[in-house]
């Protein structure tokens, strides 16, 4: 990038907030996947106004603008491809601007770390439910841009269900404000929902107004162990059919359990074929206890070897820390992994689990299965070695078959990671040509020069 242009960015955000050394650029060339693309410059704004000025400079030079938070994304959504452009990193916009107890709302800058927000609102008896596994190393802005989920979505819903309004910088540098504190709002199109899950392709989210709920006062968590993966996946529906809505209902298979046990030494049994983590919560202790006991009973009736409620808060926290570590800890088993994020109607969970097993044995590469079984969102992870070309070829075919299985069962490609680069080739198969065409039109009308995170969600057309 020309020095003159770098200077213009530096005048907006200050010299300390512009990174241009080869080392800095390399550090901003990746996210939570194995994809890479080196930016030409990194700028770290501190206000919405600075962000608007940055985009204006970029637009004048037709420079791609890639929004980024803490870089924990799993779809390569914040990586500059095909290389170049300016990464706008929001980690230094990390102020909680307001917590409005009366209206149960919080106004935050995009770079606030999700768990930091949760900690602050919980002090006031409030609750921000979305809990992606990356709560401690991802930002609200990124969560909204990818419409992040997490275990608690089963009961509480996903990130976009908690976004009341947004401030975003558009491709021409104008500042858009959507929504507001009222819960009900049908004045015009729902732009808030449009920007949530737009992955930085329609605008740069700089601030968010979030909906909070009352903090559940009681929580119980059980670990249920199964000798058969099929029985575990059937138990998921058995619990829900009884009318119990746990906060979370997580499935993990033997390999997943073995990996976290190796990493964290929690004393989990590694000879079981699958485990469920079931969590109930609420404001009435008796109900919470009754529900966790009922869930345990249902699991036992469905063939669980054991069901045990966590002894204390430390054990509960340990279980969740373990659950959050599954994905990265798989690196203990193979040099590379490709984590998918398919979602099916939850009735189809036992079926999709069987199909995944079949795909795995057909190609001879392990697929580790874990995820938010209660809401139908699974993370099959293919383990492989990228250095072996024949394995990588197989992986590509397996991914295609996994997606096909999900679509055939009435599901979709991604529940919470987003499309990014990784799922781009399958977009039309999942959505059909009309839907893709409508989405492209929206993109084109908001970003005619295609400077906002180009190459994400859609392929770049010449």
């Amino acid at each position, binding site marked *: 990038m020309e020095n003159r242009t770098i200077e213009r960015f530096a005048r907006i955000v200050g010299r300390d907030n512009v*990174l241009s050394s080869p080392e*800095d650029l390399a550090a901003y060339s990746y996210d939570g996947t194995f994809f890479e693309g080196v930016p030409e410059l990194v700028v770290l704004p501190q206000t919405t106004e600075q962000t608007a000025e940055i985009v204006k400079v970029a637009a004048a030079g037709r420079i791609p603008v890639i929004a980024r938070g803490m*870089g924990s994304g799993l779809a390569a959504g914040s990586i500059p491809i095909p290389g170049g452009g300016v990464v706008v990193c929001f980690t230094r916009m990390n102020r909680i601007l307001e917590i409005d107890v009366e209206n149960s709302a919080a106004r935050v800058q995009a770079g606030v770390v999700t*768990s930091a927000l949760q900690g602050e609102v919980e002090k006031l008896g409030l609750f921000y439910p979305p809990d992606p596994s990356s709560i401690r190393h991802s930002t609200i802005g990124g969560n909204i841009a990818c419409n992040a989920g997490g275990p608690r979505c089963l009961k509480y819903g996903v990130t976009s269900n908690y976004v009341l309004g947004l401030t975003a910088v558009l491709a021409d540098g104008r500042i858009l404000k959507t929504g507001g504190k009222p819960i009900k709002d049908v004045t015009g199109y729902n732009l808030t929902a449009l920007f949530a899950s737009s992955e930085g392709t329609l605008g740069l989210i700089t601030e968010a107004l979030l909906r909070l709920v009352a903090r559940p006062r009681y929580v119980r968590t059980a670990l249920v162990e199964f000798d058969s993966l099929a029985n575990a996946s059937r138990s998921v529906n058995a619990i829900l059919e009884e009318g119990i809505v746990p906060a979370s209902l997580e499935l993990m298979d033997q390999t997943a359990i073995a990996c976290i046990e190796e990493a964290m030494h929690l004393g989990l049994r590694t000879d079981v074929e699958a485990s469920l983590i079931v969590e109930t919560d609420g404001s009435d202790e008796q109900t919470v206890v009754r529900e966790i006991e009922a869930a345990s009973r249902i699991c036992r009736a469905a063939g669980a070897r054991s069901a045990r409620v966590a002894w204390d808060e430390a054990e509960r926290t340990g279980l969740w820390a373990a659950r959050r570590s599954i994905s990265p800890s798989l*690196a203990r088993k193979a040099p590379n992994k490709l984590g998918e994020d398919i979602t099916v109607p939850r009735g189809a969970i036992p079926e999709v689990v069987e199909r995944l097993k079949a795909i795995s044995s057909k190609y001879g590469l392990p697929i580790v299965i874990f995820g938010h079984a209660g809401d139908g969102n699974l993370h099959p992870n293919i383990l492989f070695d990228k250095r072996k070309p024949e394995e990588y070829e197989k992986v590509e075919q397996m991914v295609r078959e996994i997606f096909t299985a999900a679509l055939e069962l009435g599901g979709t490609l991604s529940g919470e990671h987003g499309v990014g680069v990784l799922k781009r080739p399958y977009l039309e198969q999942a959505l059909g040509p009309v839907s893709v065409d409508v989405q492209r039109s929206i993109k084109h009308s908001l970003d005619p020069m295609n400077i906002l995170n180009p190459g994400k969600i859609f392929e770049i057309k010449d």
Partner: protein
Amino acid sequence: MNIVKPAESEYQNCMRCGLCLAVCPTYREYLNETASPRGRVALARKGLEGQLALSPNLIEQMYGCFDCMACNDICPVGIRPADLALSMRHFDEQIHPEKWKQWLFGGLIAHARRMELATLPLRLYERLGIRRLVYMLGLNRLLPGRIRDLEAMLPRIPQRPLRRILPRVTKAYGEERYRVGFFLGCAQSLLFASQSAAALRVLARNGCTVITPKEVKCCGMPARSYGRMDLVKEQARHNIKVFDGLNVDFIITDCATCGSTLKQYGSFLADDSEWAERADRFRIKVRDISEFLDEIPLRKPAGRIDDKVTYHDPCHLRRGQNVWKQPRKLLSLINGLEFVELPEADWCCGSAGSQLITHYDASRKVLDRKLDNVEKTKAHILASGCPGCQMQLTTGLKRRGLSVRVVHPVTLLDESYGGANGK
């Protein structure tokens, strides 16, 4: 010469999940990926695999790590980013050796006697009353901020290094139950003599005959921080030889950094066929003093300290040695002493060896976070068993005008036993 390179296993399997960003003190202050463990691992890998030049700036990122090891602990894959940063310093030092390091770590720090001579001006500064004069006349305020901080960081310097005063053998008071060696660290001897003297009394009171060999060299941590593994190994072999001759059951130290380094002698010398086994036998005898005191039946102290204490976990103790319950337990033995847990007690204080000088701004930012937490506890005593942490914390507290006493937990135990006059 055979250049030792970080092994592929030290970086290859990083999944870039980003969990380490949540616990890294330098990332938390700068919110910049380049200052994060994941960033350092990526840079090391790209440097080693030839995608990036091994530029001074790349190596500087390795020196930007405070080696608090929080990332080592949290990594679900088992990568140790903090260790990798040290391996990279070592790697670079072999390619671009710097003369001053040989002089400083090989020539000066390694030799207790030379260090004592070199620090003589500091002792005179204290002893001749110049320091008091400087403060009385307010001359310290004329110093630029960074120098003023360094001046303030100096504890009240003992008149003579403890190494020169301490007898080689301290007999157990009463019946001898253990025969232990004491590794007297440089900082303890030169700057915190009274604390180690107190530590020895506590050991003796609890049935230990303590042998303190005077001919030990520096544990090796400073040389390790600057990539001179050759010197570390030389010092390790020397220290192992010294203690091998003593016939002791345990080797005890009251310095968190020395302890964590001594415990690694086994791995430092693992591929040295002549020394590996000796180093391993040495390593398993090493105990931090709080760890040792927790393992033996202790005499209940008779005295009281009616005050409020909190405790800061030194990184080299909490993560370097997995010792964190023991010092808290020791404090709880003292009558009258109210213990209050420090929020984020195991978060680095920013001292990080010499980073407090070389990375002054980062160090100060990390320290400020720690001090905010100390203030929240409203404690009047801040216990911590590491001379580096103690100096850093003392400076910070002084700068904020807080009167909180920073002290080794075992010193408090000694006081409750009656100190030098107690029985």
